[in-house]
C-alpha cells in the first residue's frame, strides 16, 4: 500500500492571477530578501489584493533557512491570522512557508513533530499556496521541508503528507527573474530528483511517469539555457514544469544518496543545494547502478540505450550535460575550500550523510566507509569503481 500526493496545479504564463480567485481576507506572503529587493512580491500582492483582502509580507528568508526563520514567520502568522499563506520563492522559502503553515494550524505541535507519523490534518484555518520562482527544488509539490538547526548545524529533514501545498502555481514568467547560474543549479537539482526517484526503492508507477518525463525535458532543454540571448521562453516554461514533475516524482518516491551527501555538504559549507546534489549525481549513479539496473532502464527512451548500459555510461551522460551547461563536477569546482578543510570536515560529512533519511530508500545502502569513499571520489573527480 502506498500513496501519491500532489497539490492542485495551476500553470501557464501569467497564472499568478489565479490568486485573486482565492479571495483571501488576509494573506501572509512569505518570500526571501533577495526577491523582495527585486520587487517580485509586488506582482503577487496585486492579485491577492484584488479580492479586497489584506496582505502582509514576511520577506526574511535567507538561503539555507534556519529554525529561527520559521519561528519569526510563525510569530507574524499568529499576529496576522491569515486565511491564506503563500510561499513565493525557491525551495528555502517554500520550506519555511510549509513549516510555518503547519505550526500555525497546529500551535500545539513543534517542528520536531513534523514527521510522517504524526497524526495531523491541516487546512482548518488557512490554505497553503506554493509559487516557485526557481525551476528545480520541486518543494511546491512535495511533503518535505529541509531546515538548518543553527549556524553550521545539521539539516533537519522534516516531512508530512499534510505539508504538500493545496495549490502550486507554476508561472514561468516568475522564473525569468532567476540569474543564469541559479537556472543551471536548480535544473541540476531537478534532474537529480528525477534520476534518484527512478532508482529509489520506493519508486512506483506514478512517480516513474513524472520522473521519466522530467528527465526527458531536462536533457533536451538544459543545453538551450546557455545561449548568448539568455533562456528562450519555451525552454524556460518547459524547465519550470519539469521541476515540478521532478518534485512529484521524488516527493512520492524519495531521493537517494546524492541528496544525503548534498544535505551534509550544504550543512557544513555555503554551497547552493542544486549545485551540490547535481555534482554528486554521477557518483551516486555509478555506485547504485548494479543494484537498480532495471530501474535505470526506464530512462532508455529519454537517454538512449547506450547511456543506460552501465553505471559509467549513465554517469558520463550526466557529466557531459554538466560540461555543456557549466555545472560543477567535483567538490572543489563547486565551492572554494582547501584540501585540509575538506579532510577536517570529512568525518562530519560522512556521519551527517549516513544519518540522512535519504539513505535508506537508496537502492544500495552505503556503509560509512563507502560514504567516505564516495565523498573522496567527488573531491578528486574519480570514477566510482567499488
Amino acid at each position: 500500500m502506498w500513496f501519491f500526493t500532489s497539490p492542485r496545479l495551476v500553470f501557464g504564463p501569467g497564472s499568478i492571477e489565479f490568486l485573486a480567485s482565492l479571495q483571501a481576507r488576509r494573506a501572509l506572503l512569505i518570500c526571501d530578501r533577495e526577491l523582495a529587493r527585486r520587487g517580485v512580491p509586488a506582482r503577487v500582492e496585486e492579485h491577492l489584493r484584488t479580492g479586497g483582502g489584506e496582505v502582509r509580507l514576511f520577506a526574511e528568508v535567507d538561503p539555507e533557512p534556519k529554525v529561527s526563520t520559521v519561528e519569526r514567520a510563525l510569530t507574524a502568522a499568529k499576529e496576522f491570522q491569515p486565511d491564506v499563506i503563500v510561499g513565493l520563492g525557491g525551495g528555502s522559502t517554500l520550506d519555511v512557508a510549509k513549516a510555518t503553515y503547519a505550526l500555525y494550524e497546529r500551535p500545539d505541535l513543534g517542528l520536531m513533530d513534523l514527521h510522517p507519523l504524526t497524526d495531523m490534518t491541516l487546512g482548518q484555518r488557512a490554505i497553503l499556496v506554493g509559487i516557485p520562482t526557481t525551476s528545480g527544488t520541486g518543494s511546491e509539490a512535495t511533503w518535505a521541508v529541509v531546515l538548518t538547526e543553527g549556524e553550521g548545524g545539521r539539516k533537519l529533514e522534516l516531512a508530512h503528507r499534510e505539508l504538500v501545498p493545496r495549490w502550486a502555481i507554476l508561472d514561468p514568467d516568475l522564473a525569468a527573474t532567476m540569474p543564469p547560474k541559479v537556472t543551471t543549479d536548480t535544473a541540476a537539482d531537478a534532474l537529480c530528483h528525477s534520476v534518484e526517484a527512478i532508482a529509489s526503492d520506493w519508486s512506483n508507477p506514478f512517480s516513474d511517469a513524472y520522473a521519466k518525463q522530467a528527465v526527458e525535458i531536462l536533457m533536451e532543454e538544459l543545453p538551450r539555457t546557455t545561449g548568448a540571448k539568455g533562456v528562450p521562453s519555451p525552454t524556460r516554461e518547459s524547465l519550470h514544469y519539469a521541476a515540478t514533475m521532478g518534485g512529484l516524482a521524488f516527493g512520492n518516491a524519495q531521493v537517494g544518496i546524492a541528496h544525503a551527501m548534498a544535505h551534509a555538504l550544504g550543512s557544513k559549507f555555503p554551497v547552493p543545494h542544486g549545485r551540490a546534489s547535481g555534482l554528486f549525481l554521477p557518483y551516486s549513479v555509478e555506485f547504485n547502478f548494479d543494484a537498480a539496473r532495471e530501474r535505470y532502464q526506464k530512462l532508455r527512451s529519454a537517454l538512449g540505450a547506450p547511456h543506460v548500459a552501465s553505471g559509467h555510461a549513465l554517469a558520463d551522460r550526466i557529466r557531459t550535460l554538466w560540461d555543456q551547461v557549466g555545472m560543477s563536477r567535483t567538490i572543489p569546482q563547486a565551492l572554494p575550500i582547501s584540501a585540509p578543510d575538506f579532510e577536517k570536515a570529512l568525518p562530519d560529512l560522512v556521519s551527517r550523510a549516513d544519518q540522512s533519511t535519504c539513505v535508506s530508500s537508496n537502492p544500495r545502502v552505503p556503509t560509512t566507509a563507502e560514504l567516505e569513499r564516495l565523498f573522496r571520489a567527488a573531491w578528486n573527480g574519480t570514477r566510482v569503481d567499488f
Partner: protein
Amino acid sequence: MAKFPSHEWIALFQEELNKNAAYEDSARTWEGDFIFVVEPDGPIASRQAFYLDLFHGKCREARLLTNPEERSAAYSYAGTYSNWKRLIQGELDPLKALMGGQFKLKGNMMKIMRYTRAAKELVNTASRVPTEFQ
C-alpha cells in the same frame, strides 16, 4: 528453522544481528531498547512481544516476553502477525509500512529518523533467520 514468534526465533535473530557488520556500522551510536509487538491475527490468538536491548551496534539482550505487558522500552514497533510475516519475507519496507499504517511506532521519532539505515538492517537480518510461519 524456528517458528515465528518463539523463544528459538528471537535467539536466532539475536545471533544473526550480532553477526551483521552492516547493522553494527549503521547502529554504532544507537542506544535504545525496543519492544516488537505481534498483534493477533490469522493463526495467532494472543498478543506476543519480544524485548530487544540494542546498544552501539549490538543486541545485548533479546527474549520473548512471557507477558507482553511485562516491561516497557524506549520504542515499540507493533503490527499484526500477517504484517510481521510480510515484513520478514521482505514484502514490506519497515518505514513505508509505518507510513501506510500497517505498523505503529512509539518513541522519540526525531532520534529514530536518523537511524533509518539501521532499521532497514534490522529487518534484513530478520529475513535471514530461517523462519517457519504457523
